[in-house]
């Protein structure tokens, strides 16, 4: 069930969504993939259309990591469009080490009960039973995440059979299209979680956008060769080249700590932003969270950005990303 039905979204989609001043041009949106057929007289649950559709509703929003119901309420009051329930934020996973796993379902349920916005939770890469458990407790979105310790070094979860949608991280176009091929309805940059350093998220977003720009001018023969080269399914690469964007919603994640970081990722073409450790490891989480929410809406308005960036207290302590990084490079997990 729920194999993506490729129903290209009608309108011509020019100009790559990149850079400033895009609010007046034709927007580039990920196509709808509803299960619509002419003669349906029944309803259908868990289609790729409703899975990718929820991601479309989250666009222009901020998804915040929270570790308990109290933080979830702070995030909701600050305008988060969803929360990510987890036991430890990535900065603490780095500091404490050990194997990081799916959170206690009881804690996740407390967060679900505390807020009205969608609740996401993380599973280890390849751990489909953790995913089955999260689906059973009625979570809204699953993040198959490199922030947790991978359970399978070879395989990701086959995400098509699940009714609950999945988001996955990617560092480049090939990785993103492989995840979509496995059933991910939503992609985010991997960045380098728990560092408060945006450099890797920028690298991944620029890599994806740059590869898409190159693919968009290629002939079909060249696309076949590129598909082989980046190990991506040809049909998804071809659709991406035609749309000039990923065929699903694409958020920034990993190292975002300030409103300016968030606006930077939006101007680089992201549809929204995940913030992990950056909020609850800062001096004034409620204020910083609200400022980042506003920054994602007004990312093209430097005047508003300057106002909301004022007086936010201390940002989280950032880490330099090199070989001595405690906890290692999470982004290289699960390719």
């Amino acid at each position, binding site marked *: 069930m729920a194999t993506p039905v490729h129903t290209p979204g009608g309108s011509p989609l020019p100009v790559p969504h990149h850079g400033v001043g895009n609010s007046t041009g034709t927007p580039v949106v990920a196509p709808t993939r509803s299960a619509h057929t002419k003669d349906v007289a029944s309803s259908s649950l868990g289609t790729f259309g409703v899975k990718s559709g929820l991601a479309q509703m989250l666009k*222009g929003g901020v998804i915040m990591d929270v570790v308990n119901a109290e933080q979830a309420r702070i995030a909701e009051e600050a305008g988060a469009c969803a929360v990510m329930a987890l036991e430890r934020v990535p900065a603490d996973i780095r500091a404490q080490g050990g194997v990081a796993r799916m959170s206690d379902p009881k804690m996740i349920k407390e967060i679900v009960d505390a807020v009205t*916005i969608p609740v996401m939770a993380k599973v280890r890469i390849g751990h489909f039973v953790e995913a089955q458990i999260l689906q059973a407790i009625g979570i809204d979105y699953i993040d198959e995440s490199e922030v947790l310790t991978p359970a399978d070094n070879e395989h990701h979860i086959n995400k098509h059979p699940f009714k609950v949608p999945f988001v996955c991280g990617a560092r480049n176009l090939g990785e993103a299209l492989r995840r979509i091929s496995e059933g991910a309805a939503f992609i985010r940059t991997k960045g380098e979680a728990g560092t408060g350093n945006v450099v890797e998220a920028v690298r991944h977003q620029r890599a994806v956008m740059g590869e898409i720009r190159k693919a968009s001018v290629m002939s079909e023969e060249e696309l076949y060769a590129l598909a082989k080269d980046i190990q991506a399914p040809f049909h998804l690469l071809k659709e991406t080249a035609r749309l000039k964007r990923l065929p699903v919603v694409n958020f920034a994640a990993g190292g975002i700590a300030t409103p300016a970081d968030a606006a930077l990722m939006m101007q680089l073409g992201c549809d929204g932003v995940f913030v992990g450790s950056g909020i609850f490891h800062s001096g004034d989480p409620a204020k910083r969270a609200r400022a980042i929410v506003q920054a994602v809406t007004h990312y093209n308005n430097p005047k508003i950005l300057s106002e909301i960036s004022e007086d936010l207290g201390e940002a989280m302590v950032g880490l330099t990303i090199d070989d001595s990084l405690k906890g290692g490079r999470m982004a290289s997990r699960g390719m």
Partner: protein
Amino acid sequence: MSDEQEPPRDLNVGILALQGAFAEHQVMLKKLNLRHRIVIILVRTQEDLAKCDALIIPGGESTTIALLARLAGLLDPLHEFKKTKPIWGTCAGAILLAESVENAKKGGQELLNAISISITRNGWGSQIESFEAPLEVEGLRESERPFHGIFIRAPVILSLNTSLTGEPIQIISRISTGLLPSSQTVVPTDEDDTDPRDPRTIVALKQGRHLLTTFHPELTKDNRFHEYFVTQCVIPSLRDHA
């Protein structure tokens, strides 16, 4: 006052672009082929709103959109806007148009109170209860062809109330109960949910100049609802002002 004699004039249709699926509405409006040219305005500030003849509030998270509207100083202007100009709310937008809401976040949330209904958030359950279903819609072009309804954590209408302005509520579409997800939570199974007056099956309605849908026409490739809004709400309201 026949259509043919009206000189075509540009229609300035705003889309509230604070959070959510506003770009999808923009794509749909651009595909409309009407006598009037449509100028699309993405509304993020009071100055943007002041240019609009009508407004679409998209799907997204209603708590987030309400908060961003307040922080951008848009709430009071929106309350003024609704008194004379048409607004269409889809999903989260439908919640914001309502008079009262259940299952709101602790402490409640701001509403525009433009349509006299009570509504509940996530009426059918969490994301795994999100569904697609064909709908019969009154008054759409080619109305014999069903409109494909995409319901994502959709709100459910609980009651139709009497409006202070006395405007009647016109029901445009109901979902047949046989198409509801079997595990949905609002209508208990031991209750007679076949009563045609049951408000919980109403998924699209119009009151005065305002339009409300609990599903997402902007996620389809079918622009008949956008055409309906422009021809049944926006153009008639211009005439009222003329």
